[in-house]
């Protein structure tokens, strides 16, 4: 996929909802925790009981401003508004959101490929409850009944609305990934798409070339992974092109991405669209963060992913390959670059540190687990000094992560990964060469492929304790 036929171009804007990492909900003291027994984190406010009133969570405001500053938004005095529409997951049948006066006004996000995407706004609002469909297909279409859990109702959200500046599904994925990394870096969100912490809606239209006017757009909902973002947009753009090529028209509507079927389908058309009757929320007063507060939050922001990528690039110097660039993106996205910078600061070679963090550490932590930066640095130093082989270093790392930490040297010793001294290695080599005299002769005469054969024999004889690099060096030395 990915290529639209002829001179067609897609125009994409994304609306990203992110839950904020607060302890409590946006307007009440109920716990903001994912999961939990249904309808246990509820109170008069988040259940919308008659007589209840909202009071704004100061931490949510701070996190929203952090997001705004990270996206270079203008922070402005804001007013909460009511967005009125009936839906059973919405306890008051209106959503408290920000409308004409959002907290975060115009800003931008630069993609790693250099594209600048305008952020039109990043406003605060409350989440809805969670509906489960019973009977029928288990999906909303054709369900017999539904049940509602309001634990999520009132959870603080920031909705980040991009301009229509994205021109490919790949770019949309990059935008979502970069935004996710920024949200994690600010500490505003854990970015867990699979838990719904970050949810993406895409507005997609197509046109004939960059100078043509925008076409009719469709909004695609339910994009709950980066992969879905890319697939759904590719699919939707192609669907629209095919319609237009066939002389038909695109209807403005909301469409639902069916990940299993790999297609979008109509959720509601524009004629059914609501008249939201926004008006200022009379139960809340205006929010006007002071310059001092904004400056203090700005000063407390850590470096954002783009800057952190630049830092790693700087550590690598002139020898950057495409593989390095991928590793850099990957460690920054996963918030693991601190391991690389710590190792580099301790004098470990950046390429080795980057490779181990991007591959082995990321893999090990991916299954859940933790490791202190200092522990990783020691292990990298051991490997670089030849105290352990690469294979051994990986095994030690897996044990360390599984145990949540420990002393790398002690783990290596316990696994029997003690450094073979040069004499012992020589003795093994003598024996292996003696046993395989013919092969050795061919190797000496220039059959390089046999280097692996001899390394393998030595490794087997030492039960993996020998350092592969040292074996190789010895073999070459002996060949002369």
């Amino acid at each position: 996929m990915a290529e639209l036929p002829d001179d067609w171009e897609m125009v994409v804007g994304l609306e990203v909802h992110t839950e904020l990492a607060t302890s409590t909900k946006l307007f009440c003291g109920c716990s903001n925790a994912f999961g939990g027994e249904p309808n246990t984190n509820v109170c008069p406010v988040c259940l919308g009981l008659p007589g209840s009133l909202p009071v704004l969570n100061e931490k949510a405001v701070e996190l929203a401003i952090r997001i705004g500053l990270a996206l270079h938004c203008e922070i402005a005095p804001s007013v909460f508004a009511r967005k009125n529409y009936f839906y059973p997951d919405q306890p008051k049948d209106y959503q408290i959101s920000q409308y004409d006066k959002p907290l975060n006004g115009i800003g931008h996000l630069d993609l790693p490929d250099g594209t600048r995407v305008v952020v039109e706004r990043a406003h605060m609002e409350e989440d809805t409850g969670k509906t489960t469909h019973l009977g029928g297909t288990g999906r909303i279409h054709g369900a017999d009944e539904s049940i509602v859990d309001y634990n999520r109702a009132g959870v603080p959200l920031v909705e980040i609305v991009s301009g229509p500046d994205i021109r490919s599904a790949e770019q949309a994925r990059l935008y979502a990934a970069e935004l996710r990394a920024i949200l994690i870096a600010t500490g505003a969100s854990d970015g867990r798409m699979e838990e719904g912490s970050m949810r993406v809606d895409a507005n997609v239209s197509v046109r004939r070339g960059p100078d043509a006017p925008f076409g009719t757009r469709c909004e695609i909902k339910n994009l709950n992974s980066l992969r879905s973002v890319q697939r759904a947009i590719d699919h939707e753009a192609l669907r629209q092109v095919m319609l237009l090529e066939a002389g038909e028209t695109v209807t403005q509507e909301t469409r639902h991405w069916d990940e299993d079927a790999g297609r979008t389908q109509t959720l509601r058309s524009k004629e059914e669209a609501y008249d939201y009757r926004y008006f200022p929320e009379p139960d809340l007063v205006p929010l006007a963060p002071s310059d001092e507060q904004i400056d203090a939050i700005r000063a407390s922001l850590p470096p954002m992913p783009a800057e952190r990528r630049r830092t790693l690039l700087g550590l690598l110097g002139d020898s950057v390959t495409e593989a390095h660039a991928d590793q850099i993106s990957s460690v920054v996205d996963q918030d693991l670059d601190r391991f690389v910078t710590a190792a580099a600061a301790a004098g470990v070679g950046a390429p080795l540190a980057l490779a181990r963090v991007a591959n082995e550490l990321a893999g090990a932590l991916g299954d859940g687990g933790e490791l202190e930066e200092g522990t990783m640095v020691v292990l990298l130093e051991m490997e670089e000094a030849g105290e352990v082989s690469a294979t051994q270093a990986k095994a030690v790392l897996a044990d360390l992560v599984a145990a949540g930490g420990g002393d790398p040297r002690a783990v290596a010793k316990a696994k029997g990964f003690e450094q073979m001294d040069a004499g012992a290695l020589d003795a093994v080599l003598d024996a292996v060469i003696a046993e395989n005299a013919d092969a050795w002769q061919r190797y000496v005469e220039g059959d390089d492929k046999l280097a692996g054969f001899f390394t393998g024999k030595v490794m087997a004889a030492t039960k993996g304790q020998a350092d592969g690099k040292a074996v190789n060096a010895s073999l070459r030395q002996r060949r002369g």
Partner: protein
Amino acid sequence: MSEPAPLSADDVAKVAVLARLNLTDEEVERFTGQLASILGHAADLAALDLSTLKVTEHPLELSNVLRADEVRPSLDRAEVLSQAPAVADDRFLVPQIVGEEG
């Protein structure tokens, strides 16, 4: 501020749909007359030039009313669900939701 078009029975029918109220034809007619009379009284406002005045969003000049991010006890679920018209699986049960999603 110019005066908007007078209220029609059609408007009332549309508003009833937005407000989730079912009206009989007789009610549409009656409400149209009554609402038109109230809106007619409001015509005196349309005649005012208030373009230089701000909109009062609030009778008080308060701003930045915030609370600390501290967990407070939630309600007892049994007490909450005891007031619900229908419950299944400790959740609020509703009939089919047709072709829409918030």
